[in-house]
């Protein structure tokens, strides 16, 4: 895994004391600015939002929102953002972040994880497919100020873990 020397990758939670790190990442990574609700959701999701540190430098993050499914009290996870700073890609950091969330889901018996992705973002789509995500829907004109404006919904269903109690 990775190139060059062994460098430790670690994850850390997001708190109001270090939320600026997430903001800095988002400014660098995404063409949109996120509003306060995004950050409130991220904080509320607790363990489901993580910063990734590469030899003590914060280089990536996954931010999720926990949603109640319509009807029953079932919870599902919506991945709001997942990204790694350009120079640090290809080092397994994104995998580490996504696996963290997927593991957490199976531990907490959450059966569904989904997200939106721009239709032309093939790298991302391929990435998620590796983790058994499937395209379940296409939404036209989802984005307001980027092209193409359409997006796919990618969903992954998780079997409840039966191994451990």
């Amino acid at each position, binding site marked *: 895994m990775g*190139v060059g020397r062994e460098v430790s990758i670690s994850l850390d939670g997001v708190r109001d004391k270090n939320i600026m790190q997430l903001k800095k990442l988002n400014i660098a990574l995404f063409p*949109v600015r996120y509003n306060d609700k995004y950050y409130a959701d991220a904080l509320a999701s607790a363990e489901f939002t993580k910063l990734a540190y590469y030899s003590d430098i*914060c280089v990536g993050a996954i931010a999720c929102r926990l949603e109640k499914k319509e009807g029953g009290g079932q919870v599902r996870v919506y991945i709001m953002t997942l990204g*790694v700073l350009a120079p640090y890609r*290809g*080092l397994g950091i994104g995998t580490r972040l996504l696996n963290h969330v997927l593991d957490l889901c199976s531990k907490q018996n959450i059966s569904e994880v989904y997200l939106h992705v721009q239709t032309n973002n093939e790298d991302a789509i391929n990435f998620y497919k590796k983790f058994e995500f499937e395209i379940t829907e296409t939404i036209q004109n989802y984005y307001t100020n980027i092209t193409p404006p359409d997006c796919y919904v990618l969903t992954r269903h998780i079997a409840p873990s039966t191994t451990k109690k």
Partner: protein
Amino acid sequence: MGASLPPKEANLFKLIVKSYETKQYKKGLKAADAILKKFPDHGETLSMKGLTLNCMDRKSEAYELVRQGLKNDLKSHVCWHVFGLLYRSDREYREAIKCYRNALRIDPDNIEILRDLSLLQAQMRDLSGFVETRQQLLTLKPNHRMNWIGFSVAHHLNSNGSKAVEILEAYEGTLEKDHPPDNERCEHGEMILYKISLLEECGFLDRALEELRQKETKIVDKLAFKEQEVSLLVKLGHLEEAETIYRILLSMNPDNYSYYEGLQKCAGLYLEDGKYSSDQIDQLVALYETLGQQYKWSSAVKRIPLDFLQGDKFREAAESYIRPLLTKGVPSLFSDLSSLYNHPGKADILEQIILELEHSIRTSSQYPGSTEKESPSTHLWTLFFLAQHYDRRGQYEISLSKIDEAIEHTPTVIDLYSVKSRILKHAGDLNAAAEFADEARRMDLADRYVNSECVKRMLQADQVALAEKIAVLFTKDGDQHNNLHDMQCMWYELASGESFFRQGNLGRALKKFLAVEKHHADITEDQFDFHSYCLRKMTLRMYVEMLKFQDQLHSHAYFHKAAAGAIRSYIKLHDFPPKSTAEEDEHMSNLLPSQKKKMRQKQRKAEARAKKDAEEKNEELNSSAVSKSGKRNVKPVDSDPHGEKLLQVEDPLSEAVKYLKLLQKNSPDSLETHLLSFELYTRKRKILLAFQAVKQLLRLDADHPDSHRCLIKFFHQLGSMSTPVTESEKLIWSVLEAERPTISQLHEKSLFDSNNAFLDNHKDSLMHRAAFTEILYILDSNRKSEAVKLIEESANNIVPRNGAIGPIGEWKLKDCIAVHQLLGTVLVDQDAALRWKVRCAEYFPYSTYFEGRHSSASPNSAFNQLRKNSEKDSPNHSVGNQNVVSTTSNGKAFENLTI
């Protein structure tokens, strides 16, 4: 005690004493009142009641009762002792000593009083008195260890080391063979080490070494043993033996620089100035090569050779030192190497090394000649180093472009923003510096260091209110002012005081400067408890060291800054006294009656509000304090939070003299001390004292522009004074007449000539030129245009250096600002000042003072553009719940999937 009382009351009296000792004050008070009911005039009871009340915060009653008690029973040592204790509690040590002495006259062998007296004598450094008291204590109770030790320490402090040794030896003579018992081994070991340090201090080196080796088994602190041994061996010239010990010490701690230095000294390879011959360098290289193989994990052994290596060898060593640290990501690497920038030529070599590394990493992700891929963060740290390098060299534009590149690469590293803030500060843009320090702070709200750094930058940018708000975040309960004061947070108080001074708010400036002075008084005070504690615990070497530290406490830089700040504030207060109320009324009479009324109302309202706030706060404090401890334990609320009362001193200059005297005593080798002295005494028309200041300046640095300025100004002013009339004036005159020929700068020259000579000697220095022109103008105001021309003719020469990017001018921003002020306020030539400003704006494009094009003072600067953009952006692009997982527009995903 209480002897004159009948048995029942005598018992009650004993109860008072006991209650006092066990802090049961209410109980003691009751007992005292019971006695006083029957014997209302009983002196000792009155005194004890007073002492008890003193501990219950009823000071004035306490003093009254204690005085009354003493008056009723002048022959009682108890009454005198109590009076002494009372004074001691108020830190009136001199008075307290007097009282104790009176008590001892009545009861000369009272151990308790003697002990109390000895503590005060140590505190006040009444050393001969201290020796005497300690001797008495030892005579009275020779079976107490502490009395022997105390007597010895007293002699040591009184500069009689050999006597101190004798006493310790006599004490050792009283000990059994099997001393010490297990539970006293540490203390006994400390005593032996103390004794050996005394022997060393007295120059009995052989004896010290013999003693040390003989008692080795009894010394618990093995490290101190070795360090003491090696120090003695070196002094005795037994270098070979010393070398072995240094090697043992190094194996214990291979990162202690002083051991390496010691080892070099033993090998005859140590020079204070570091200018080694090539032969010596070869030997050093060999030495450190073997050491490096022995201590692979030591960073000192790798770093030290960079100090003595030169040229290509330096380049090679530096590069192999730097590479792994950049890979590892050590943010402090630059400050580790920054001392090398004082060695000629090394900065250029470092620049070449880092540029090569940066180029190689950028193009191939590898160090030159290496096949191993570097991790992405290596590039980041290389840029980070480069930015600091160019900052250090004064090339701010390149420096900022490098740090921006680093931020672009990895925008989440806090150190990058801190360094950017520091570069901007150096470049002269304090507002932008504060802005970036704040950005760094917001990236980790749990980090006190970035918080403090931000506060400091804000104060430097004169954003006091904001700075206070930020500082509050890290104080208890948000009670910032008291808390920072209680914590003796002096950097904050100094920075805040300087800022208030710049803004002309002298009251608050003085408030802060005097607070720092107060802290130093408190620190002096704090040693009191250690006089008894250290003797008991036998930490004697540390104790004596602490006393020596205390003796020169006021020479600390913080105190110097605070005192200088206070003096400058008082001088300014003298030069521009605050408007009296009459003048203010006059000012108001220019307004229309309706306006006047409005203004008055406004003022009144504001005052009332402030008063109410203060009262509420006070009450809150009181209620919470009472509920907690039951007893009133409220800190007095500051009645003068803005230092308005400080402004109302009658004679600011005399206030300033108090602090000047402390500076003269504790910082006699600082130019600033004597500059202030000159300014102060010229204003006070103390001619001889001003002359003394001039002489001190000449002694310290006769070539300094300020020394020259003061010298000529002094004699110029003297020349314009009327001829002496009174006896004392004549006397002063004759002194100066006798002194003038001794000043080589003047000799028989006129002031003009000596001014010219000064310029001839320092033609190329801007600040010397400025001093010359200022004096020229003072001597003859008709030559103003000549003076201005001379300044404008100065050239900002390029510092010669080989092969590096971009020219660096010689001029410093600080100096150019001073020249601008000279042109504007002393020579009063606004056109010239403006021309100067335009010229300097070119040299210092980031300076807000000169409104350089890149500074935050210029509306078109990148800084302000950025700000505008972020303002445009921030009102939430209202993306709402829409989420993007993709990244940049070119479709490159966040993951390249090489798993």
